[in-house]
């Protein structure tokens, strides 16, 4: 645990700068494969490379400024209370929507999406989530299937 703790108590701007540098270097490496051209006749790779280089410099700058500045309380990368359940539920909602939308249609997808994501809030109960999910499903089907004619069928079996 100790090395992990050390990692998390680093200034968060080191990570911020690192991430930006990574994106910058990544785009340069990817854009290298396109035709770069010259300043006069720019190819598709020219602009991405300029941006990638700019991004790399900005990333180094962010980390560099963080290294120079004195430490402040909210600098560290410690998430106060990780909300694993809430995060999982919020992400599971749309993911279920994708799968159930493809497998079962609009009604099961809507119901599952709302029900599961509602469980993420600490004050929600199974009952309140159920009521909300039924309510949103009824309104959603009325609005999107009847009024706006979205192409997703209300029910279907299995076909992707």
């Amino acid at each position: 645990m100790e090395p992990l703790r050390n990692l998390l108590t680093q200034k968060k701007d080191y990570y911020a700068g690192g991430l930006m540098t990574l994106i910058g270097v990544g785009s340069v490496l990817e854009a290298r494969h396109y035709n770069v051209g010259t300043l006069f006749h720019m190819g598709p790779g020219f602009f991405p490379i300029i941006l990638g280089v700019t991004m790399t410099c900005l990333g180094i700058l962010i980390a560099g400024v963080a290294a120079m500045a004195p430490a402040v309380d909210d600098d560290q990368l410690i998430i106060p209370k990780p909300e694993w359940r809430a995060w999982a539920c919020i992400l599971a909602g749309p993911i279920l929507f994708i799968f159930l939308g493809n497998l079962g249609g609009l009604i099961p997808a809507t119901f599952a999406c709302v029900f599961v994501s509602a469980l993420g809030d600490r004050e929600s109960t199974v009952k309140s989530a159920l009521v909300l999910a039924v309510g949103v499903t009824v309104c959603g089907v009325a609005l999107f299937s009847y009024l706006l004619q979205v192409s997703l069928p209300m029910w279907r079996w299995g076909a992707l």
Partner: protein
Amino acid sequence: MILSALTDLWHGFEVIFGPPYLWHFMPYYLVFTFLGVLIGNIVGVLPGMGVLATISILLPLTFGMKPVAAILMLAGVFYGAQYGGAICSILLNLPCHPPHAVTCLDGYPMTKQGRGGVALGITVIASFVGASWGIMEMTFLAPVLVQVALKFGPSEVCSLMLLGLLAGSTLARGSPIKGVAMTVFGLLLGIVGADIETGTPRFAFGLTELDDGVEIVALALGLFGIAEFMNTVNQTAPINTKYTNVKLRDMWPAKADFRRAFWPMWRGTWIGSLCALIPGTGPTIASFVSYAVEKKISRTPERFGHGAIEGVACPEASTHSSVQGDFIPTMSLGIPGDAVMALLLGALTIQGIVPGPQLISQHPDVFWGLVASFWVGNIMLVILNVPMIGIWVKLLTIPYRYLYPSALFFICIGVYSTNNDMFQVGETIAIGIFGYILLQLGFHPAPILLGFVLGPRFEENFRRAMLISRGDLLVFVERPISAFFVSLCVLLILAQIFVRLRTNGRSKVDEVIPRAAE
């Protein structure tokens, strides 16, 4: 000049009311204006719902509409939410919409003294005054600006965009370097897809779905929907309904209140309309600056923060005049000042309308219809907010646990219906996760949208400018107008470095918002 602007405005009213012989039919555009401001007002009141997320959810629904209806409804959400956001700040002390964070400072003390109704009443008056001024500014100034902008070649457009991007990313909230990094990230996202000239797919990583580029709806809903929900869930303070019992008869301000608020209201309006013209300084900066100015010139600055009515009237007027004025650079130059404007430009582009100085002459219906809808929409909002205050106050008590799951469903179905493709929903989830990481690392994701929307046009103009000048970068400083914009960019960067060295890099807006949130 003035006369022609007025004739054009009359044309705008004709567009949204329809020609006189059709008046006994349903006024199609009026219905959409009303829908827009109504949805905006509701979203503004609901704590924890954002304007950006709402506009992006509605965006796919507008694909089938006429361009005028689409743009005036989406714009209505933006200024309608400003009316609603003030209620949230004054009665609950929740700065759910950044422009109204400053209003908490004096609005909530007034509520605690039992004068919440008066604060709301003066807010509605100040908002209408500010908005009216902003609309007049747009009516008369935008056509003038267009005359200048039509003379711009690719190099001028390019350096103006650079200025817009720099200002948009450095003057907003948070660290300026991080803001610029977000803009560049947005530009990179804008590159994804087939190259306009050669058709080479760029940054598509073999996914054919990405050949058309990143979907703007998926990007906006990932960043301002899913990432925002992950950030807010279980973090909302319990809503204190002790003071929310406001009745209509409490709202009319006394004569003394009115006299006190009169000049601050006008000063706020003027500051707001100035801020709207500087790219990158939207309503949030305007309200903050006007509050600071008002406190400084007041004879009794010690009353501020303890329920001074000036402290409500002034930032509210300035927010509204800035919100309306924000449309000026967006509609006349095609340069959006903030993420909301970027989204509206995206909506126009989807409708097949190319933003830029030629917009007013090529699509007078869109521009003047929009201006006319501002007048109608603001009058609707005043009517909505005064007699129906009881309903809005009830909406404040809807808990977050009902809001975000419903919003997630709207996000899923909205993103799906852009292309009838579940891939987009997956894209939204991925962007949402990444956006949450960015939020945790102290980035504000709004400039991403700015870069994303401007990126393709920026690249196109840059390439064209280089082609004309035979690859000579000096063209940007040799042509006088372009040189002016470039020097403004340099000035902006120098000013940022100077400010950073003096204040250790913390922007003042950031200081005020957490303080108001307590």
